[in-house]
C-alpha cells in the first residue's frame, strides 16, 4: 500500500506569516499617519496637498496599500473558504476579489502621483 500523506496546498505557512508581516507594516504606518495628522498645522487644501506631496508619505502609503491588499486577499479568501461551499462560485468570487484588489492598487498609485 502506498503511503500518501495528506498535505495542504503549501501556502498555509507562507500566508500565515505574510498576514503578520503585513499587519506590522500597517500598524507602523497607522502610527506614522496619526503623527502626520497631529502635526498638520491647519486642515485646508494646501496643507493637506503639501503633506501628500512628501515622498515619505507617498512611498509609505504605497507600501501600506501593498500590505493592505495582500492582507485583505488572505482574509477574504479565508472567509470564502469557510462559507462558500460551491467550488465554481468560490473560484468566481476569488477572481472578482483579485481583480478588485489590483484595481484598488492602481487607483491608489493614481491618487498618490496623479
Amino acid at each position, binding site marked *: 500500500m502506498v503511503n500518501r500523506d495528506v498535505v495542504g496546498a503549501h501556502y498555509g505557512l507562507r500566508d500565515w506569516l505574510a498576514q*503578520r508581516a503585513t*499587519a*506590522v507594516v*500597517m*500598524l507602523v504606518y*497607522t502610527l506614522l499617519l*496619526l503623527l502626520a*495628522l*497631529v502635526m498638520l498645522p491647519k486642515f*485646508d*487644501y494646501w496643507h*493637506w*496637498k503639501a503633506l*501628500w506631496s512628501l515622498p515619505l508619505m507617498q512611498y509609505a502609503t504605497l507600501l501600506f496599500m501593498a500590505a*493592505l491588499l495582500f492582507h*485583505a486577499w488572505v*482574509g*477574504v479568501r479565508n*472567509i470564502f473558504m469557510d462559507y462558500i461551499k460551491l467550488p465554481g462560485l468560490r473560484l468566481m468570487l476569488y477572481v472578482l476579489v483579485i481583480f*478588485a484588489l489590483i484595481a*484598488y492598487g492602481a*487607483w*491608489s498609485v*493614481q*491618487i498618490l502621483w*496623479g
Partner: protein
Amino acid sequence: MTSTVARKRPKYLNLMQIRLPVPGIISIMHRVSGAVLFLMIPLLLWLFQSSLQSAETFQQFRSVVTHPLMKLLLLGLLWGYLHHLLAGVRHLFLDLHIGIELEAARRSSLIVLIGGILLTLAVGVALW
C-alpha cells in the same frame, strides 16, 4: 460491548442559544470588521481622491464627510479599523505564546473590546 445506539447529544447550533465567551466575541468581530473594511475600500479611496484632486473637490470632500450620516459611517469604520488592529496585536502576542492561559486570554480580549471603543472615541473627538 460497545453500544451502537446513537445517543442524543446536545447540539447548540442555534446562534441565539450559544453563549459566546469574550475571546469568541472579539474573534467574530475581527472577522466581521475585516470584511466590512474590505468592502469599504472603494469608498475610502474615493474620499481620499476627492480630498487631493483639486481645491474644489477638497471642498466637496469636506461637505461629504461632515454630513452626519457619513460621520456616523466613518466613525463606525474607524471603530472597525481600530478593533481589527488591536485584536491583531493580541494575535501577535498569542503567537509568541504570551497570554495564552485562559484567564490572561479573557482579560486581553476585554482590553481589546473596551480599548477599541475608547480609542475610537478619542480619535473621533480629536478629528472632529
